[in-house]
Protein backbone atom coordinates (compact mmCIF):
# COMPACT_ATOMS: atom_id res chain seq x y z
CA UNK A 1 0.00 0.00 0.00
CA UNK A 2 1.41 3.35 -1.01
CA UNK A 3 0.58 6.68 0.56
CA UNK A 4 -0.71 8.91 -2.24
CA UNK A 5 -0.70 12.26 -0.48
CA UNK A 6 2.43 12.91 1.54
CA UNK A 7 2.48 15.83 3.94
CA UNK A 8 4.28 18.65 2.08
CA UNK A 9 7.70 19.49 3.46
CA UNK A 10 7.02 23.20 3.00
CA UNK A 11 4.32 23.08 5.65
CA UNK A 12 5.22 22.20 9.23
CA UNK A 13 3.36 19.19 10.60
CA UNK A 14 1.49 21.14 13.25
CA UNK A 15 -2.18 21.66 13.98
CA UNK A 16 -3.41 24.87 12.40
CA UNK A 17 -5.71 27.17 14.34
CA UNK A 18 -8.19 27.84 11.54
CA UNK A 19 -11.88 27.13 12.14
CA UNK A 20 -13.45 23.87 10.90
CA UNK A 21 -14.20 24.30 7.22
CA UNK A 22 -12.07 27.42 6.73
CA UNK A 23 -10.35 27.70 3.36
CA UNK A 24 -7.00 28.91 4.74
CA UNK A 25 -5.84 25.38 5.63
CA UNK A 26 -6.50 24.17 2.09
CA UNK A 27 -4.69 27.13 0.56
CA UNK A 28 -1.69 26.81 2.90
CA UNK A 29 -1.35 23.19 1.83
CA UNK A 30 -1.54 24.07 -1.86
CA UNK A 31 1.14 26.76 -1.54
CA UNK A 32 3.33 24.27 0.32
CA UNK A 33 2.79 21.52 -2.26
CA UNK A 34 3.72 23.95 -5.04
CA UNK A 35 6.84 25.05 -3.16
CA UNK A 36 7.82 21.37 -2.86
CA UNK A 37 7.11 20.57 -6.51
CA UNK A 38 9.05 23.60 -7.77
CA UNK A 39 11.89 22.89 -5.34
CA UNK A 40 11.92 26.45 -4.01
CA UNK A 41 11.35 25.89 -0.29
CA UNK A 42 14.90 26.70 0.70
CA UNK A 43 14.95 30.07 -1.04
CA UNK A 44 11.40 31.19 -0.35
CA UNK A 45 10.51 34.00 2.02
CA UNK A 46 6.83 34.40 2.83
CA UNK A 47 5.00 37.44 4.17
CA UNK A 48 2.22 36.80 6.66
CA UNK A 49 -0.61 39.34 6.97
CA UNK A 50 -2.73 40.67 9.82
CA UNK A 51 -5.92 38.64 9.89
CA UNK A 52 -6.68 35.00 10.56
CA UNK A 53 -3.56 34.05 8.60
CA UNK A 54 -1.32 36.09 10.90
CA UNK A 55 -0.04 32.76 12.18
CA UNK A 56 1.03 31.65 8.71
CA UNK A 57 4.50 32.62 9.88
CA UNK A 58 4.47 29.58 12.18
CA UNK A 59 3.04 27.17 9.59
CA UNK A 60 5.17 27.51 6.45
CA UNK A 61 8.53 25.75 6.58
CA UNK A 62 10.57 28.60 5.15
CA UNK A 63 11.68 32.03 6.29
CA UNK A 64 8.67 34.14 7.14
CA UNK A 65 8.02 37.74 8.09
CA UNK A 66 4.88 39.07 9.73
CA UNK A 67 4.23 42.77 9.36
CA UNK A 68 1.61 45.52 9.57
CA UNK A 69 -1.88 45.15 8.18
CA UNK A 70 -1.99 45.56 4.42
CA UNK A 71 1.70 46.28 3.92
CA UNK A 72 2.67 42.76 2.76
CA UNK A 73 3.26 43.75 -0.88
CA UNK A 74 5.56 46.57 0.27
CA UNK A 75 7.48 44.21 2.56
CA UNK A 76 7.68 41.65 -0.25
CA UNK A 77 9.04 44.34 -2.60
CA UNK A 78 11.73 45.15 -0.06
CA UNK A 79 12.74 41.53 0.40
CA UNK A 80 12.78 40.80 -3.33
CA UNK A 81 14.77 43.90 -4.22
CA UNK A 82 17.25 43.40 -1.42
CA UNK A 83 17.64 39.68 -2.19
CA UNK A 84 16.60 38.97 -5.79
CA UNK A 85 17.70 35.33 -5.44
CA UNK A 86 14.75 34.62 -3.13
CA UNK A 87 11.24 33.64 -4.12
CA UNK A 88 8.84 35.90 -2.25
CA UNK A 89 5.13 35.50 -1.64
CA UNK A 90 2.65 37.74 0.14
CA UNK A 91 -0.32 35.89 1.64
CA UNK A 92 -3.25 38.21 2.37
CA UNK A 93 -6.94 38.32 3.23
CA UNK A 94 -9.56 40.65 1.82
CA UNK A 95 -9.23 43.26 4.58
CA UNK A 96 -5.45 43.19 4.39
CA UNK A 97 -5.25 43.43 0.61
CA UNK A 98 -8.36 45.30 -0.49
CA UNK A 99 -9.00 47.64 2.40
CA UNK A 100 -6.02 49.06 4.24
CA UNK A 101 -3.55 47.58 1.76
CA UNK A 102 -5.21 48.88 -1.38
CA UNK A 103 -2.41 51.37 -2.05
CA UNK A 104 0.34 48.82 -1.59
CA UNK A 105 -1.13 46.10 -3.81
CA UNK A 106 -1.90 48.52 -6.62
CA UNK A 107 1.57 50.03 -6.63
CA UNK A 108 3.29 46.67 -6.32
CA UNK A 109 1.37 45.62 -9.44
CA UNK A 110 2.18 48.94 -11.15
CA UNK A 111 5.88 48.30 -10.56
CA UNK A 112 5.40 44.74 -11.87
CA UNK A 113 7.24 43.64 -8.76
CA UNK A 114 8.43 40.07 -9.44
CA UNK A 115 6.54 38.50 -6.54
CA UNK A 116 3.60 36.14 -6.01
CA UNK A 117 0.50 37.25 -4.14
CA UNK A 118 -1.98 34.78 -2.64
CA UNK A 119 -5.20 36.73 -2.04
CA UNK A 120 -7.78 34.89 0.08
CA UNK A 121 -11.22 36.40 -0.46
CA UNK A 122 -13.91 35.28 2.00
CA UNK A 123 -15.96 38.48 1.89
CA UNK A 124 -15.67 39.17 5.63
CA UNK A 125 -13.24 40.12 8.39
CA UNK A 126 -12.43 36.90 10.25
CA UNK A 127 -9.86 37.54 12.96
CA UNK A 128 -11.58 40.65 14.31
CA UNK A 129 -15.00 39.02 14.56
CA UNK A 130 -17.00 39.43 11.36
CA UNK A 131 -16.98 43.06 10.25
CA UNK A 132 -17.77 44.06 6.69
CA UNK A 133 -14.97 43.63 4.16
CA UNK A 134 -14.47 45.48 0.88
CA UNK A 135 -15.62 42.27 -0.81
CA UNK A 136 -18.68 41.73 1.39
CA UNK A 137 -21.72 41.21 -0.86
CA UNK A 138 -24.69 43.57 -1.10
CA UNK A 139 -27.23 42.33 1.42
CA UNK A 140 -24.67 40.22 3.27
CA UNK A 141 -24.77 40.80 7.02
CA UNK A 142 -21.72 41.67 9.06
CA UNK A 143 -21.17 43.21 12.47
CA UNK A 144 -20.69 46.70 11.02
CA UNK A 145 -23.69 46.37 8.72
CA UNK A 146 -26.07 44.38 10.83
CA UNK A 147 -29.00 44.73 8.42
CA UNK A 148 -26.89 43.82 5.43
CA UNK A 149 -24.54 45.83 3.24
CA UNK A 150 -26.24 48.51 1.17
CA UNK A 151 -24.66 50.16 -1.84
CA UNK A 152 -25.78 53.56 -0.59
CA UNK A 153 -23.96 53.27 2.72
CA UNK A 154 -20.93 51.26 1.75
CA UNK A 155 -20.67 50.98 -2.01
CA UNK A 156 -20.25 47.73 -3.94
CA UNK A 157 -17.95 44.76 -3.35
CA UNK A 158 -14.62 45.39 -5.06
CA UNK A 159 -13.48 43.04 -7.82
CA UNK A 160 -9.74 43.04 -7.24
CA UNK A 161 -8.75 40.65 -10.04
CA UNK A 162 -10.62 42.69 -12.64
CA UNK A 163 -9.19 45.95 -11.34
CA UNK A 164 -5.58 44.79 -11.03
CA UNK A 165 -5.76 43.27 -14.50
CA UNK A 166 -6.04 46.79 -15.97
CA UNK A 167 -2.57 47.60 -14.66
CA UNK A 168 0.14 47.22 -17.32
CA UNK A 169 2.60 45.89 -14.76
CA UNK A 170 0.36 42.98 -13.75
CA UNK A 171 1.58 39.84 -15.47
CA UNK A 172 -0.83 37.16 -14.34
CA UNK A 173 -4.11 37.51 -12.46
CA UNK A 174 -6.50 34.59 -11.93
CA UNK A 175 -9.48 34.04 -9.69
CA UNK A 176 -10.17 30.53 -8.43
CA UNK A 177 -12.08 28.88 -5.58
CA UNK A 178 -11.55 26.18 -2.95
CA UNK A 179 -15.16 25.37 -2.14
CA UNK A 180 -15.11 22.27 -4.37
CA UNK A 181 -12.59 19.55 -5.05
CA UNK A 182 -12.27 20.63 -8.68
CA UNK A 183 -11.80 24.23 -7.52
CA UNK A 184 -8.99 23.11 -5.25
CA UNK A 185 -7.19 21.36 -8.12
CA UNK A 186 -7.51 24.44 -10.35
CA UNK A 187 -6.36 26.69 -7.51
CA UNK A 188 -3.23 24.64 -7.14
CA UNK A 189 -2.49 24.96 -10.87
CA UNK A 190 -2.96 28.72 -10.65
CA UNK A 191 -0.69 29.00 -7.61
CA UNK A 192 1.93 26.91 -9.40
CA UNK A 193 1.80 29.22 -12.41
CA UNK A 194 2.03 32.27 -10.16
CA UNK A 195 5.21 30.92 -8.56
CA UNK A 196 6.65 29.69 -11.87
CA UNK A 197 6.23 33.19 -13.28
CA UNK A 198 8.34 34.53 -10.46
CA UNK A 199 11.01 31.90 -11.04
CA UNK A 200 11.03 32.92 -14.71
CA UNK A 201 11.26 36.60 -13.78
CA UNK A 202 7.99 37.48 -15.45
CA UNK A 203 6.68 40.07 -13.01
CA UNK A 204 3.65 40.48 -10.75
CA UNK A 205 1.41 37.41 -10.32
CA UNK A 206 -1.69 37.22 -8.14
CA UNK A 207 -4.20 34.45 -7.46
CA UNK A 208 -7.48 35.54 -5.88
CA UNK A 209 -9.02 32.54 -4.14
CA UNK A 210 -12.64 32.48 -3.02
CA UNK A 211 -12.72 30.83 0.38
CA UNK A 212 -15.12 29.82 3.16
CA UNK A 213 -15.55 31.47 6.55
CA UNK A 214 -18.27 29.44 8.28
CA UNK A 215 -17.75 31.12 11.66
CA UNK A 216 -18.36 34.68 10.52
CA UNK A 217 -20.85 33.84 7.79
CA UNK A 218 -22.94 32.19 10.51
CA UNK A 219 -23.10 28.90 8.64
CA UNK A 220 -22.96 25.64 10.53
CA UNK A 221 -19.47 24.43 11.32
CA UNK A 222 -20.68 20.82 11.10
CA UNK A 223 -22.47 21.23 7.79
CA UNK A 224 -20.12 22.56 5.15
CA UNK A 225 -22.78 22.72 2.45
CA UNK A 226 -24.14 25.97 3.92
CA UNK A 227 -20.79 27.70 3.45
CA UNK A 228 -20.02 26.12 0.08
CA UNK A 229 -23.49 27.16 -1.05
CA UNK A 230 -22.71 30.76 -0.14
CA UNK A 231 -19.61 30.63 -2.31
CA UNK A 232 -21.44 28.95 -5.19
CA UNK A 233 -24.61 31.01 -5.18
CA UNK A 234 -23.53 34.26 -3.54
CA UNK A 235 -19.91 34.85 -4.38
CA UNK A 236 -19.42 33.26 -7.82
CA UNK A 237 -21.91 35.56 -9.61
CA UNK A 238 -20.14 38.62 -8.15
CA UNK A 239 -16.61 37.23 -8.41
CA UNK A 240 -16.53 35.09 -11.59
CA UNK A 241 -13.70 32.59 -11.82
CA UNK A 242 -11.15 32.84 -14.59
CA UNK A 243 -7.93 34.28 -15.89
CA UNK A 244 -8.07 38.07 -16.00
CA UNK A 245 -4.57 38.75 -17.16
CA UNK A 246 -1.88 36.57 -18.69
CA UNK A 247 1.03 38.41 -20.29
CA UNK A 248 4.75 37.82 -20.46
CA UNK A 249 7.24 40.42 -19.24
CA UNK A 250 9.11 39.98 -22.53
CA UNK A 251 6.12 41.35 -24.41
CA UNK A 252 5.91 44.50 -22.30
CA UNK A 253 7.44 47.60 -23.87
Amino acid sequence: MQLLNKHPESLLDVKMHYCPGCGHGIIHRLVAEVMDELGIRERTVGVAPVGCAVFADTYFNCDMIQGPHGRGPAEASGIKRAKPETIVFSYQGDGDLASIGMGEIVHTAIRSENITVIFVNNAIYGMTGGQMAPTTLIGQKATTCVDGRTAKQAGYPIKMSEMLATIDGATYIERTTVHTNVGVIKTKAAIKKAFQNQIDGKGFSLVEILSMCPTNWGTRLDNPSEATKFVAEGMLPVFPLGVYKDACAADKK
Partner: protein
Amino acid sequence: MAEKKLMKGNEALAEGAIRAGCRFFAGYPITPQNEVPEYMSWRLPQVGGAFLQSESEVAAINTVYGAAATGVRCMTSSSSPGMSLKQEGISYAAGADLPIFIGNVMRGGPGLGNIAGAQGDYWQATRGGGHGDYRTFVMAPNCVTELANFPAKCYEVAFKYRIPSMVLADGILGQMMEPVEFTAPEVDVKTLVEPEWALGVNKGRAKRIVKSYDLKEGGVEIMVNERVKRYNAIEQNEVLFEEKMIEDAEIVMVAYGISSRVCMAALKQAREKGLKVGLLRPITLWPFPKARLVELSKRVKNFLVVEMSLGQMVEDVALAINGRSNVYLHAKPGASVITADEVCKTMDQILKKEAKEYAAAK
Protein backbone atom coordinates in the same frame (compact mmCIF):
# COMPACT_ATOMS: atom_id res chain seq x y z
CA MET B 1 -31.59 57.98 41.07
CA ALA B 2 -30.25 57.67 37.58
CA GLU B 3 -30.95 54.44 35.74
CA LYS B 4 -28.09 51.93 35.72
CA LYS B 5 -27.40 49.75 32.72
CA LEU B 6 -25.00 46.81 32.47
CA MET B 7 -22.72 47.63 29.57
CA LYS B 8 -19.47 46.58 27.98
CA GLY B 9 -16.76 49.25 28.20
CA ASN B 10 -16.41 49.77 24.46
CA GLU B 11 -20.16 50.12 24.02
CA ALA B 12 -20.39 52.54 26.94
CA LEU B 13 -17.72 54.68 25.30
CA ALA B 14 -19.68 54.74 22.06
CA GLU B 15 -22.99 55.48 23.75
CA GLY B 16 -21.34 58.11 25.93
CA ALA B 17 -19.98 59.86 22.87
CA ILE B 18 -23.40 59.84 21.23
CA ARG B 19 -25.03 61.26 24.33
CA ALA B 20 -22.36 63.96 24.32
CA GLY B 21 -23.46 64.91 20.82
CA CYS B 22 -21.31 62.75 18.55
CA ARG B 23 -23.05 62.45 15.19
CA PHE B 24 -20.27 61.09 13.00
CA PHE B 25 -17.92 58.18 13.46
CA ALA B 26 -15.27 56.71 11.19
CA GLY B 27 -13.14 53.78 12.24
CA TYR B 28 -11.61 50.46 11.32
CA PRO B 29 -11.77 47.05 12.98
CA ILE B 30 -8.96 46.23 15.41
CA THR B 31 -9.09 44.11 18.53
CA PRO B 32 -9.89 44.94 21.38
CA GLN B 33 -12.06 47.91 20.38
CA ASN B 34 -14.29 46.40 17.67
CA GLU B 35 -17.44 46.94 19.68
CA VAL B 36 -16.98 50.70 19.29
CA PRO B 37 -17.42 50.83 15.48
CA GLU B 38 -19.91 47.94 15.62
CA TYR B 39 -22.12 49.81 18.13
CA MET B 40 -21.77 53.07 16.21
CA SER B 41 -22.79 51.37 12.95
CA TRP B 42 -26.37 50.80 14.11
CA ARG B 43 -26.75 53.41 16.87
CA LEU B 44 -25.68 56.52 14.95
CA PRO B 45 -28.33 56.18 12.23
CA GLN B 46 -30.90 55.93 15.03
CA VAL B 47 -30.03 59.46 16.18
CA GLY B 48 -29.68 60.90 12.68
CA GLY B 49 -25.91 60.52 12.65
CA ALA B 50 -23.61 58.85 10.14
CA PHE B 51 -21.21 55.95 10.41
CA LEU B 52 -18.40 54.92 8.12
CA GLN B 53 -16.16 51.89 8.28
CA SER B 54 -13.10 53.41 6.63
CA GLU B 55 -10.61 51.44 4.59
CA SER B 56 -7.92 51.98 7.23
CA GLU B 57 -7.15 53.93 10.40
CA VAL B 58 -5.34 56.49 8.28
CA ALA B 59 -8.45 57.00 6.18
CA ALA B 60 -10.59 57.13 9.33
CA ILE B 61 -8.63 59.90 11.04
CA ASN B 62 -8.61 61.92 7.84
CA THR B 63 -12.34 61.39 7.39
CA VAL B 64 -12.86 62.64 10.94
CA TYR B 65 -10.54 65.59 10.16
CA GLY B 66 -12.90 66.47 7.34
CA ALA B 67 -16.09 65.96 9.33
CA ALA B 68 -14.74 67.94 12.28
CA ALA B 69 -13.99 70.85 9.99
CA THR B 70 -17.74 71.20 9.42
CA GLY B 71 -18.25 71.74 13.14
CA VAL B 72 -19.92 68.37 13.74
CA ARG B 73 -19.06 66.42 16.88
CA CYS B 74 -17.26 63.38 15.56
CA MET B 75 -15.17 60.49 16.78
CA THR B 76 -12.73 57.84 15.69
CA SER B 77 -11.43 54.97 17.76
CA SER B 78 -8.72 52.35 17.46
CA SER B 79 -6.16 50.40 19.45
CA SER B 80 -2.43 50.92 19.69
CA PRO B 81 -1.17 49.90 16.21
CA GLY B 82 -4.09 51.74 14.64
CA MET B 83 -3.38 54.77 16.82
CA SER B 84 0.13 54.86 15.42
CA LEU B 85 -1.42 55.12 11.97
CA LYS B 86 -3.53 58.07 13.10
CA GLN B 87 -0.67 60.22 14.35
CA GLU B 88 -0.26 62.31 11.22
CA GLY B 89 -3.98 63.03 11.16
CA ILE B 90 -3.99 64.01 14.83
CA SER B 91 -1.07 66.37 14.22
CA TYR B 92 -3.04 67.92 11.36
CA ALA B 93 -6.11 68.30 13.55
CA ALA B 94 -4.02 69.92 16.27
CA GLY B 95 -2.40 72.22 13.70
CA ALA B 96 -5.79 73.13 12.26
CA ASP B 97 -7.31 73.65 15.73
CA LEU B 98 -10.01 71.05 15.16
CA PRO B 99 -11.93 69.49 18.05
CA ILE B 100 -11.75 65.79 17.20
CA PHE B 101 -12.47 63.06 19.74
CA ILE B 102 -10.42 59.89 19.73
CA GLY B 103 -10.77 56.66 21.66
CA ASN B 104 -7.70 54.47 22.17
CA VAL B 105 -8.30 51.04 23.69
CA MET B 106 -4.69 50.08 24.33
CA ARG B 107 -3.24 46.65 23.72
CA GLY B 108 0.21 45.14 24.22
CA GLY B 109 2.93 46.54 22.02
CA PRO B 110 5.10 47.55 20.31
CA GLY B 111 4.37 46.16 16.85
CA LEU B 112 1.53 43.68 16.53
CA GLY B 113 2.14 42.89 20.22
CA ASN B 114 -0.92 41.10 21.51
CA ILE B 115 -4.63 41.82 21.86
CA ALA B 116 -4.85 42.13 25.64
CA GLY B 117 -5.17 45.36 27.61
CA ALA B 118 -1.98 47.32 28.31
CA GLN B 119 -0.88 50.87 29.07
CA GLY B 120 1.95 51.25 26.60
CA ASP B 121 0.62 54.26 24.69
CA TYR B 122 0.98 56.88 27.45
CA TRP B 123 3.92 58.52 25.70
CA GLN B 124 2.16 58.41 22.37
CA ALA B 125 -0.95 59.99 23.82
CA THR B 126 0.64 62.69 25.95
CA ARG B 127 3.81 63.44 24.03
CA GLY B 128 2.09 64.06 20.73
CA GLY B 129 2.80 60.84 18.93
CA GLY B 130 2.48 62.93 15.82
CA HIS B 131 5.01 65.44 14.63
CA GLY B 132 5.38 69.05 15.65
CA ASP B 133 4.56 71.20 18.66
CA TYR B 134 1.12 70.35 19.94
CA ARG B 135 -0.85 68.88 22.82
CA THR B 136 -3.83 66.55 23.08
CA PHE B 137 -6.33 66.60 25.96
CA VAL B 138 -6.19 63.07 27.38
CA MET B 139 -8.52 61.50 29.92
CA ALA B 140 -7.98 58.07 31.48
CA PRO B 141 -11.10 56.32 32.75
CA ASN B 142 -10.80 53.44 35.18
CA CYS B 143 -14.28 51.98 35.02
CA VAL B 144 -17.09 51.57 32.53
CA THR B 145 -19.10 54.45 34.01
CA GLU B 146 -16.16 56.78 33.38
CA LEU B 147 -15.85 55.44 29.84
CA ALA B 148 -19.49 56.42 29.45
CA ASN B 149 -19.18 59.92 30.91
CA PHE B 150 -15.72 61.16 29.92
CA PRO B 151 -16.66 61.80 26.27
CA ALA B 152 -18.86 64.68 27.42
CA LYS B 153 -15.90 66.37 29.13
CA CYS B 154 -13.67 65.62 26.15
CA TYR B 155 -16.05 67.32 23.72
CA GLU B 156 -16.47 70.27 26.07
CA VAL B 157 -12.72 70.85 26.32
CA ALA B 158 -12.14 70.06 22.65
CA PHE B 159 -14.63 72.67 21.45
CA LYS B 160 -13.81 75.27 24.11
CA TYR B 161 -10.08 75.25 23.43
CA ARG B 162 -10.07 73.86 19.86
CA ILE B 163 -7.83 70.91 20.67
CA PRO B 164 -7.98 67.17 19.85
CA SER B 165 -9.19 65.17 22.83
CA MET B 166 -8.76 61.55 23.73
CA VAL B 167 -10.08 58.88 26.04
CA LEU B 168 -7.17 56.56 26.79
CA ALA B 169 -8.56 53.18 27.86
CA ASP B 170 -7.22 49.65 27.60
CA GLY B 171 -8.46 46.27 26.45
CA ILE B 172 -9.52 45.20 29.94
CA LEU B 173 -11.72 48.26 30.46
CA GLY B 174 -12.99 47.99 26.90
CA GLN B 175 -14.10 44.40 27.32
CA MET B 176 -15.34 44.46 30.91
CA MET B 177 -18.98 44.82 31.76
CA GLU B 178 -20.11 46.98 34.67
CA PRO B 179 -23.25 48.84 35.69
CA VAL B 180 -23.16 52.23 33.99
CA GLU B 181 -24.73 55.45 35.16
CA PHE B 182 -24.86 58.17 32.53
CA THR B 183 -24.34 61.23 34.71
CA ALA B 184 -23.06 63.62 32.08
CA PRO B 185 -26.03 65.61 30.75
CA GLU B 186 -27.23 64.42 27.37
CA VAL B 187 -26.57 66.98 24.65
CA ASP B 188 -29.40 68.07 22.41
CA VAL B 189 -27.45 68.60 19.18
CA LYS B 190 -30.13 70.98 17.93
CA THR B 191 -29.04 73.42 20.64
CA LEU B 192 -25.39 73.30 19.64
CA VAL B 193 -24.20 76.52 18.04
CA GLU B 194 -22.20 76.01 14.87
CA PRO B 195 -18.64 77.24 15.51
CA GLU B 196 -17.63 80.39 13.66
CA TRP B 197 -14.79 78.54 11.94
CA ALA B 198 -16.94 75.68 10.63
CA LEU B 199 -16.92 74.96 6.90
CA GLY B 200 -20.11 74.52 4.95
CA VAL B 201 -22.50 76.61 2.92
CA ASN B 202 -20.82 80.01 2.64
CA LYS B 203 -23.75 81.99 1.31
CA GLY B 204 -23.85 85.40 2.87
CA ARG B 205 -20.54 85.20 4.63
CA ALA B 206 -16.82 85.40 3.95
CA LYS B 207 -15.07 82.16 3.02
CA ARG B 208 -13.35 80.12 5.72
CA ILE B 209 -10.27 77.95 5.54
CA VAL B 210 -9.27 75.05 7.76
CA LYS B 211 -5.57 74.41 7.50
CA SER B 212 -2.47 73.77 9.54
CA TYR B 213 0.20 75.47 7.46
CA ASP B 214 1.74 78.91 7.17
CA LEU B 215 4.76 79.22 4.94
CA LYS B 216 5.50 82.88 5.77
CA GLU B 217 8.51 83.38 7.98
CA GLY B 218 7.48 83.23 11.60
CA GLY B 219 3.99 82.12 10.64
CA VAL B 220 4.01 78.74 12.37
CA GLU B 221 5.74 80.24 15.41
CA ILE B 222 2.82 82.63 15.80
CA MET B 223 0.29 79.82 15.36
CA VAL B 224 1.98 77.60 17.92
CA ASN B 225 2.44 80.37 20.46
CA GLU B 226 -1.23 81.24 20.23
CA ARG B 227 -1.99 77.59 20.89
CA VAL B 228 0.38 77.56 23.84
CA LYS B 229 -1.79 80.24 25.46
CA ARG B 230 -4.75 77.85 25.19
CA TYR B 231 -2.65 74.95 26.43
CA ASN B 232 -1.64 77.01 29.47
CA ALA B 233 -5.29 77.77 30.15
CA ILE B 234 -6.09 74.06 29.99
CA GLU B 235 -3.30 73.35 32.45
CA GLN B 236 -4.74 76.00 34.76
CA ASN B 237 -8.36 74.95 34.55
CA GLU B 238 -8.84 71.37 33.40
CA VAL B 239 -6.62 69.14 35.55
CA LEU B 240 -8.54 66.24 37.08
CA PHE B 241 -7.34 63.63 39.55
CA GLU B 242 -8.64 61.48 42.40
CA GLU B 243 -7.01 60.79 45.76
CA LYS B 244 -7.51 58.05 48.32
CA MET B 245 -6.06 57.99 51.85
CA ILE B 246 -3.37 60.53 51.06
CA GLU B 247 -3.35 62.41 54.37
CA ASP B 248 -1.01 60.18 56.38
CA ALA B 249 0.47 58.16 53.54
CA GLU B 250 4.16 57.25 53.65
CA ILE B 251 3.90 55.84 50.17
CA VAL B 252 1.60 57.30 47.53
CA MET B 253 0.84 55.02 44.63
CA VAL B 254 0.39 56.85 41.35
CA ALA B 255 -1.62 54.94 38.76
CA TYR B 256 -4.22 55.53 36.06
CA GLY B 257 -6.79 53.41 34.28
CA ILE B 258 -6.85 49.69 34.98
CA SER B 259 -3.69 49.91 37.10
CA SER B 260 -5.52 52.25 39.46
CA ARG B 261 -8.10 49.51 40.03
CA VAL B 262 -5.30 47.12 41.00
CA CYS B 263 -3.87 49.82 43.27
CA MET B 264 -7.23 50.31 44.99
CA ALA B 265 -7.16 46.63 45.90
CA ALA B 266 -3.54 46.98 47.00
CA LEU B 267 -4.49 50.04 49.05
CA LYS B 268 -7.15 48.11 50.93
CA GLN B 269 -4.84 45.13 51.48
CA ALA B 270 -1.94 47.26 52.70
CA ARG B 271 -4.05 49.41 55.02
CA GLU B 272 -5.51 46.26 56.57
CA LYS B 273 -1.94 45.25 57.40
CA GLY B 274 -1.35 48.66 58.94
CA LEU B 275 0.77 50.14 56.17
CA LYS B 276 0.26 53.87 55.62
CA VAL B 277 -0.23 54.07 51.90
CA GLY B 278 -2.38 56.17 49.61
CA LEU B 279 -3.28 56.54 45.94
CA LEU B 280 -3.18 59.46 43.54
CA ARG B 281 -5.05 58.68 40.35
CA PRO B 282 -4.45 61.10 37.50
CA ILE B 283 -7.66 61.37 35.48
CA THR B 284 -6.35 63.87 32.95
CA LEU B 285 -2.99 62.59 31.72
CA TRP B 286 -2.51 65.79 29.82
CA PRO B 287 -2.78 68.17 31.59
CA PHE B 288 -0.88 66.12 34.14
CA PRO B 289 -1.49 66.82 37.86
CA LYS B 290 2.01 68.28 38.23
CA ALA B 291 1.10 70.90 40.80
CA ARG B 292 -0.53 68.36 43.10
CA LEU B 293 2.53 66.09 42.91
CA VAL B 294 4.81 69.02 43.68
CA GLU B 295 2.68 69.80 46.74
CA LEU B 296 2.57 66.18 47.92
CA SER B 297 6.28 65.67 47.45
CA LYS B 298 6.96 68.25 50.14
CA ARG B 299 5.46 65.86 52.69
CA VAL B 300 5.34 62.35 51.20
CA LYS B 301 8.67 60.53 51.14
CA ASN B 302 7.86 57.79 48.62
CA PHE B 303 5.89 57.57 45.40
CA LEU B 304 5.24 54.24 43.72
CA VAL B 305 4.20 54.48 40.10
CA VAL B 306 2.27 51.42 38.94
CA GLU B 307 1.68 50.97 35.23
CA MET B 308 1.24 48.24 32.64
CA SER B 309 4.08 49.45 30.46
CA LEU B 310 7.86 49.57 30.69
CA GLY B 311 7.47 52.77 32.73
CA GLN B 312 6.10 55.79 30.87
CA MET B 313 4.02 57.91 33.24
CA VAL B 314 6.82 57.48 35.80
CA GLU B 315 8.85 60.02 33.81
CA ASP B 316 6.16 62.67 34.33
CA VAL B 317 5.97 61.79 38.02
CA ALA B 318 9.74 61.99 38.44
CA LEU B 319 9.79 65.27 36.52
CA ALA B 320 7.20 66.83 38.80
CA ILE B 321 8.77 65.52 42.00
CA ASN B 322 12.16 66.70 40.84
CA GLY B 323 14.23 64.86 43.43
CA ARG B 324 12.29 65.93 46.54
CA SER B 325 11.14 62.35 47.26
CA ASN B 326 11.93 58.79 46.16
CA VAL B 327 10.16 57.54 43.08
CA TYR B 328 9.70 53.81 42.63
CA LEU B 329 8.31 51.94 39.66
CA HIS B 330 6.27 48.76 39.49
CA ALA B 331 5.81 48.18 35.82
CA LYS B 332 4.94 45.28 33.54
CA PRO B 333 4.88 45.74 29.77
CA GLY B 334 3.24 43.62 27.13
CA ALA B 335 -0.26 43.42 28.66
CA SER B 336 0.91 41.29 31.56
CA VAL B 337 -1.43 41.99 34.43
CA ILE B 338 -0.13 43.46 37.67
CA THR B 339 -1.69 42.01 40.83
CA ALA B 340 -2.52 43.73 44.11
CA ASP B 341 -0.32 41.17 45.90
CA GLU B 342 2.70 42.21 43.83
CA VAL B 343 2.09 45.90 44.50
CA CYS B 344 1.75 45.24 48.24
CA LYS B 345 4.99 43.28 48.21
CA THR B 346 6.75 46.19 46.50
CA MET B 347 5.34 48.65 49.05
CA ASP B 348 6.59 46.36 51.82
CA GLN B 349 10.05 46.44 50.30
CA ILE B 350 9.93 50.20 49.96
CA LEU B 351 9.10 50.64 53.63
CA LYS B 352 11.89 48.25 54.56
CA LYS B 353 14.20 50.29 52.28
CA GLU B 354 14.85 47.15 50.22
CA ALA B 355 13.43 48.39 46.94
CA LYS B 356 15.44 49.98 44.17
CA GLU B 357 14.38 53.51 43.33
CA TYR B 358 13.51 54.67 39.86
CA ALA B 359 14.67 58.12 41.01
CA ALA B 360 16.12 58.65 44.46
CA ALA B 361 15.49 61.67 46.62
CA LYS B 362 18.40 64.05 46.52
